[in-house]
Each structure stands twice: as structure tokens, then as C-alpha cells.
């Protein structure tokens, strides 16, 4: 997967995780939803590791890939326009 599609998929998965968690707040014993929630979270973390191995860190304070060097500072910064994908406007 290229960088933009991983980021888009992560945006979708993190949104799902939050929405399912809100449901689980009021339905803590709904096992189907817990299973779905766990699937979403583990897929997202797997993607985060894949992203970090390919493109560098997503977070300055946590790493999903075992890296020796600290390269948070040498990547394009998250707020730089070129670094961001376009979420709206496509199918």
C-alpha cells in the first residue's frame, strides 16, 4: 500500500474504533462488538507498524516499529501541506 492509502485506512479504522468504543460504553457485554472492536484496533496497529517501517514515525512519543535512530525530526512535518492526503472529494 502506498502512503496515502495507509493513512486513509488508518483514519477510517481509528474512527471505527472510537465509534465502537462509544457503543461499548453503554453495552459493555456485547461480545460481537468487542470482537469487532478488537479486530479494528489490531488491524490499525498492524498498519501503523507497516507505515512506520516504510515512511517513518507517526508519533513523536511512541513507536510501532523497532527503530534505533530517532528520525522524528528529519521527516516532513505533519502540518506541511505536501505531507497530507486529501480525504474529501473522492469516492
Amino acid at each position, binding site marked *: 500500500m502506498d502512503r496515502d492509502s495507509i493513512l486513509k485506512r488508518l*483514519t*477510517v*479504522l481509528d*474512527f*471505527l474504533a472510537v*465509534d*465502537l468504543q462509544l*457503543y461499548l460504553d*453503554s*453495552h459493555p457485554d*456485547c461480545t*460481537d*462488538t468487542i470482537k*469487532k472492536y478488537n479486530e479494528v484496533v489490531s488491524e490499525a496497529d498492524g498498519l501503523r507498524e507497516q507505515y512506520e517501517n516504510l515512511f517513518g514515525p507517526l508519533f513523536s512519543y511512541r513507536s510501532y516499529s523497532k527503530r534505533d535512530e530517532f528520525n522524528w525530526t528529519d521527516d516532513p512535518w505533519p502540518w506541511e501541506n505536501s505531507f497530507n492526503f486529501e480525504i474529501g472529494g473522492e469516492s
Partner: protein
Amino acid sequence: MAECKPYADITNVMLAQAYVPYQRICTLMEPVAALKAGTVFPELVDVYK
């Protein structure tokens, strides 16, 4: 199976009492569609039709 109703019935309704029906899960929306709709629960999309 019968049409899945995404909320529980409200019993012994009292006058001038507000109720929020207890949610029941029927189906979850497709992930990308959920992000765009703002919820993963189809029954919560545009309830004020």
C-alpha cells in the same frame, strides 16, 4: 430472520417524560461510508427524516 429493530421498545411511557431508546445493533456500515456519514450505525444517520 425478522426485520432487525435497532432500538429497544420503551415500556410504561409516562406523560411529559423524555426517553432515549436503548440501542440494539443490527448492522454496521462499511468503514469508509461510516467515516463519511459520521457514524458506523446506519440507524443513527439522519434520524430526523
